[in-house]
């Protein structure tokens, strides 16, 4: 089974990379970008075929490791 975990910064948390990208886009002449926030995706290949079990597993992975829940939110999606 394939799944994707997306980890994004909580709103309010400063994002120096996003800020820098905003600036870089502007200086590259890409206009119309109001703001950028950078996050991560994890494309995960799972053993087994039980969706519910997979989701539970991914939540566990995200809580334990993939996200730092002090500053990040995560979203789990089993693609099947």
């Amino acid at each position, binding site marked *: 089974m394939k799944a994707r975990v997306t980890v994004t910064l909580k709103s*309010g*948390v*400063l994002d*120096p*990379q996003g800020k*820098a990208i905003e600036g870089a886009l502007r200086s590259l002449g890409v206009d119309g970008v109001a703001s950028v926030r950078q996050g991560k995706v994890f494309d995960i290949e799972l053993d087994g075929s039980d969706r519910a079990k997979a989701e539970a597993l991914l939540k566990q992975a995200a809580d*334990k*490791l*993939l996200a*730092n829940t002090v500053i990040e939110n995560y979203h789990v999606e089993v693609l099947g």
Partner: protein
Amino acid sequence: MKSAVLVFPGINRERDMARTLRLVSGQQPAMVWHTEHELPAGTDLVVVPGGFSYGDYLRCGAIAARSPIMDAVRQFAAKGGLVLGVCNGFQILCESGLLPGVLMRNENLRFICRDVFLKVERSDTPFTRGYNAGQVVRVPVAHGEGNYIADGETIARLEGEGRVIFRYSGPDGMIDPNWNHNGAINAIAGIVNDGGNVLGMMPHPENHVEAEIGSTDGRGLFAGLAEVLKRAA
């Protein structure tokens, strides 16, 4: 002083740290592998050294913070044991929950290696006995992600409780954005936990303990610790 230096895969300043501990305290530290479940008996100082544990992949310090030895360190700290985290060590302590906040990418998104000036805010902690409050020391930094942040409440508490121990400053002790090379909030370079026994800092005092190699400004931290531990023993 019976110090233990933790070794995680990818850590690379453990040898610098061990040499400094030996130079300053005259005693060889124990090198403790990350899969251990216990610290050596009688350990009175745990040092989490700098480097790139697990390549700093995922988030700096994230994977190391979850290794078996860190449970032992948490127990050690809970009993008041002294823990020092430098650079990646600071990041690991934050990721492991022993210190609040996180270290984000440097403001200019670049790795920066240079000497910086640190203002020592307090001298009444076991880590800063060797310095005077307000003293300015010159030590090097070498990191890409040293930009300390935490939520407003945490920062207010850290400041209110006097837990900011080192700040990036000018040579005269002035706090000025121009001297804050990584953009850390309130120019924070090092903090302690609420018990005052766990210190995390980005700069490398262990690389400035000899006059011919940089300076001796970093020595005070280790000499102070050795003194405190000798008295306690």
